Each structure stands twice: as structure tokens, then as C-alpha cells.
């Protein structure tokens, strides 16, 4: 077997139904539906699977799906795909199914979602939660670089307008949005207003990672994993989310989380920033898009605000971002499903499955997960072919 045939590909993806609340579902029922959906998309069966990646649920899923003996993954977000890709390239597994789902755990609507509430003794007494963590990063950038409230609104309006036109988005048909609509929504954690923020919802998703050789005979054209990287600065929501937090190496600070990861991913892929056709950026809050464009060197530091002002990040622009409506408008279920869905959207774009939101001639997608407010960012580069 030639080594190149073991290059990792994504052979199938599936999103279950997404909704604000899926009364009849549990996280487990959604996981099962997602796994079967992704395998069907790939043209594979459970009997082909010898690897499962579902964070803490990996081991019980191996048992419940009856796929043992199998490799089990532990990572999440972009790192989950990188881990699975490494596993098939190394030969630890042939067919890995990656899955995440969430239903039924967020019912107390008087509070923010449970996974957003820190319990650390140096964080919780100050009324911190996810929006506030990311707001501290955004505010510092606005003070240092002069990024404006209107620039944040431009980002949120762009992403929400993508979701408005996406038949699969929970907030389909809610638009169109003008930047002024974002600014006019009620303040949550300033600078963020309601429409700068992700929604909360329920849903599941799955993907199948295998080798190029195995994928050659499957139902869909494979999407190649060209490169990936992950940057972590520490546990989320336990320490001050400082833009200038840095480790002991001469390396980017937390405000530029994702730069090292992106540099590594591009080096592995052997391509340049200009080769990227679509950016499925993780959008928990509007400012994250501006920050990630700077962190990943799509524009110089401090110029992300002006960069998003002229339509560049819209579907018809040079750098279309978050084309399904993202966490703001498509879905934001639990911790990991919404991260996996950034990668799944990249796959959809490269397979030409994005319907009214298809980026014409999309050959390379960059997908991200995480953000500086949470002290980590993951990056993965996908291609419809090897460069």
C-alpha cells in the first residue's frame, strides 16, 4: 500500500434536525441518528466502523453501537478531526465516526445555558459567563485598535443574513438584517448586543473520517484534510480572559489564539491564505470573526474591523465567512456539536451541497473552533483535492 493512499479524508457528514428545543429527543437519540446519517452519506455501514470519537461518550458508544474492538478518540472541535485524521493515517483505525449531540440539558431559561456558567471561585462571584468572557477580549481590542460597534454589527448582519437564506437554519427567514438592526438589539454584555451573540439550541451531527484509499469506492467524493492545528492557553472560564496572556515562549498572546495553529495548518497543506475560498469561522460572538481574521493573518493586527466593512466577508465577497448562519442563526447545540458543524459546513461547501449559499468554485475551506474568550482556537483546512 502506498503511503499517500492513507491520507485522511472526510467521507460523510450529517446534521440531524436542529431546533431551539427537540422535545422528543435526548442527546443519545440524536447521536444514534447522526451516526447512521453520516455513515449513510458515506455509503458505509456500522460494520465498517473501527473507531469512534465522541469525547467522554466514545467508550460507551463503542459498546452500544457494537463496534468494538475500536480506536477511541477524546478530542473536540477542529482537534477532533485532526486526531481522527492522524489515527487513520497512522493506521490505528480505518473508519472513524465522529459524533456530538445535545438535547434536554438546557431547560432553565431564566439563566444562561449551563455550559456557559463558570463555577471557579475567582470567576463566578463576578457574574462571568461566556458572553462576558468574549466581551473582555473584544473591548480590549476596541480600546487598543479602535474597532467599532458598527464593525461588530456588520459581522453579525452578514452571518445572520446567511442563516436567513439557509433552509436548514433554525433562524431561516428571520432577516434580512441591516447592521443597524444588530446595534439596536438589547445589550447583553457590552459591547455585545443580543444579535451579536450565538443562540442556544439542540441538535446533533456526525462525520466519517477514513483514508483516501478507502474513500475511493464510496458514495460521495471525499474531502481531504489538508492540515490542522490547535492552540490552547489553559482551561476555559477559570482565569481572566486577557488578550495579552502569553506563555514563556516567544509566541503569540491569547488575543491571537489560532495564529500558531493556522501557520501549522497552512504549512502542512502547502498552500497560502489566498488559496482559501471559504472561511467557516466559529462565531460565538460577532467580534470573534474580526479577531480570527487577524489572528490567522488574513489581515494585519488591528485591521480586522475595516476588513469586514466593505462586503469582503459576505457570500459574494473575497472572504465569505460562516455560510450556514453559524452559531448565530444555523444552530448552537451544546459544546461540541456546534464546533463540529463548522467543519461539516466546510465539507458541504467543497462538495457543492450548500444550496442557495454555495460559494461558486469552492475548492479550499478553512474551518475554526473556539475563541480567545475561551482561551483556545482550533483550525482545520479542507480541500476537494490534494494541492
Amino acid at each position: 500500500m502506498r503511503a499517500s493512499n492513507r491520507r485522511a479524508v472526510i467521507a460523510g457528514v450529517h446534521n440531524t434536525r436542529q431546533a431551539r428545543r427537540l422535545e422528543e429527543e435526548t442527546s443519545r437519540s440524536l447521536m444514534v441518528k447522526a451516526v447512521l446519517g453520516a455513515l449513510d452519506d458515506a455509503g458505509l455501514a456500522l460494520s465498517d466502523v473501527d473507531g469512534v470519537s465522541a469525547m467522554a461518550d466514545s467508550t460507551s458508544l463503542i459498546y452500544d453501537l457494537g463496534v468494538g474492538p475500536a480506536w477511541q478518540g477524546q478530542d473536540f472541535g477542529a482537534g477532533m478531526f485532526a486526531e481522527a485524521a492522524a489515527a487513520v493515517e497512522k493506521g490505528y483505525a480505518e473508519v472513524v465516526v465522529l459524533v456530538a449531540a445535545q438535547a434536554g440539558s438546557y431547560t432553565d431559561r431564566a439563566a444562561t445555558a449551563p455550559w456557559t456558567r463558570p463555577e471557579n471561585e475567582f470567576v463566578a462571584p463576578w457574574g462571568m459567563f461566556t458572553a462576558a468572557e468574549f466581551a473582555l477580549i473584544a473591548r480590549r481590542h476596541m480600546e487598543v485598535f479602535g474597532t467599532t460597534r458598527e464593525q461588530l454589527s456588520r459581522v453579525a448582519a452578514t452571518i445572520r443574513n446567511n442563516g436567513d437564506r439557509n433552509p436548514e437554519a433554525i433562524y431561516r427567514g428571520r432577516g434580512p438584517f441591516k447592521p443597524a438592526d444588530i446595534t439596536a438589539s438589547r445589550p447583553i454584555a457590552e459591547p455585545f448586543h443580543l444579535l451579536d451573540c450565538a443562540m442556544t439550541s439542540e441538535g446533533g451531527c456526525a462525520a466519517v473520517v477514513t483514508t483516501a484509499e478507502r474513500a475511493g469506492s464510496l458514495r460521495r467524493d471525499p474531502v481531504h484534510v489538508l492540515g490542522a492545528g490547535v492552540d490552547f492557553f489553559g482551561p476555559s472560564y477559570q482565569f481572566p480572559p486577557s488578550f495579552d496572556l502569553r506563555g514563556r515562549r516567544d509566541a503569540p498572546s491569547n488575543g491571537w489564539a489560532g495564529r500558531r495553529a493556522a501557520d501549522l495548518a497552512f504549512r502542512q497543506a502547502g498552500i497560502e491564505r489566498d488559496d482559501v475560498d471559504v472561511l467557516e469561522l466559529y462565531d460565538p460572538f460577532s467580534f470573534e470573526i474580526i479577531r480570527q481574521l487577524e489572528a490567522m493573518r488574513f489581515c494585519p493586527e488591528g485591521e480586522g474591523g475595516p476588513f469586514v466593512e466593505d462586503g469582503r466577508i459576505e457570500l459574494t465577497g473575497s472572504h465569505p465567512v460562516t455560510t450556514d448562519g453559524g452559531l448565530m442563526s444555523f444552530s448552537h447545540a451544546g459544546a461540541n456539536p456546534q464546533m463540529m458543524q463548522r467543519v461539516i459546513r466546510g465539507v458541504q461547501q467543497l462538495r457543492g451541497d450548500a444550496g442557495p449559499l454555495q460559494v461558486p468554485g469552492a475548492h479550499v475551506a478553512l474551518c475554526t473552533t473556539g475563541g480567545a474568550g475561551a482561551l483556545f482556537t482550533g483550525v482545520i483546512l479542507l480541500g476537494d483535492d490534494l494541492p
Partner: protein
Amino acid sequence: MTTRLRAQTREVPHAVPSEVTAPFWDGCARGELLFQRCARCRAITFPPSEHCRGCLARGQVWEASAGRGTLYSWTVVHRPVTPAFDPPYAAAIVTLDEGYQMLTNIIDAAPDDLRADLPVRVSFRRVGGDLRLPYFVPA
């Protein structure tokens, strides 16, 4: 005319301190803002840790901060994390003059007064129960 930012008055979420962190909260109860300084390399570690985050030595010594610093970043929260918090409040990162950063809330200020590098000083306030929290006010 904007609302004035105030300290919380009712009980707020607060985890039980560990052996490592208890001296900090005991300091707050006395009106002292403590941090750990390494006996070996003199580096400051905050939030507290078993090991110096500079040289990884154990044997750090608690020291009192002068409680003065500058505002690094902030967010005025209007939609609180749980109903336990009365909005609006300004969650913030301050940089202490000793050179470390901590999370806090800025109080006794109007939201429009807040700006990067605003001089601030610590002000201990009792919230529900026996808990005294190190808030910061404009200096």
C-alpha cells in the same frame, strides 16, 4: 444619565476555597488583597497555585497588594448569568501595580466613565452572607 454601577447585595455564587486558595479569601475578610510571591524567583502567581508559574518552585509567600492598578478591559452586563446577579454590573480585568491581573467588578462609577487604563483601587464589599469581595472603584 446612566445607571450607577453598584456591588451586588445578595448572595452570589462562590465555590468553597481549597487549601491553596483559602488564604486569599481570609485576606479579603480582613480587607487585604493578597497574592503569592515566589520565595525563589520573586515571580507573582495569581490566581493562586501550588507552584510558582514562573520557576515552578513550591514555597510561595503570601503578600498584600497595595490594591491599586488600572482598568485593562470590562463589560457592562445587562443580561446576568443567573438571577442571583442584579444588572447592570461591570465585570472587569484590572492590572495591579504589582504586575498581575485579576477579575473583578468595577463599582461606584457610571458605565460611560470606564475606559482602558482608568486608575482604580480595591474596595472590599460584603455581599450576602459572610463573603467580602474585592471590588474596584475609580481611584
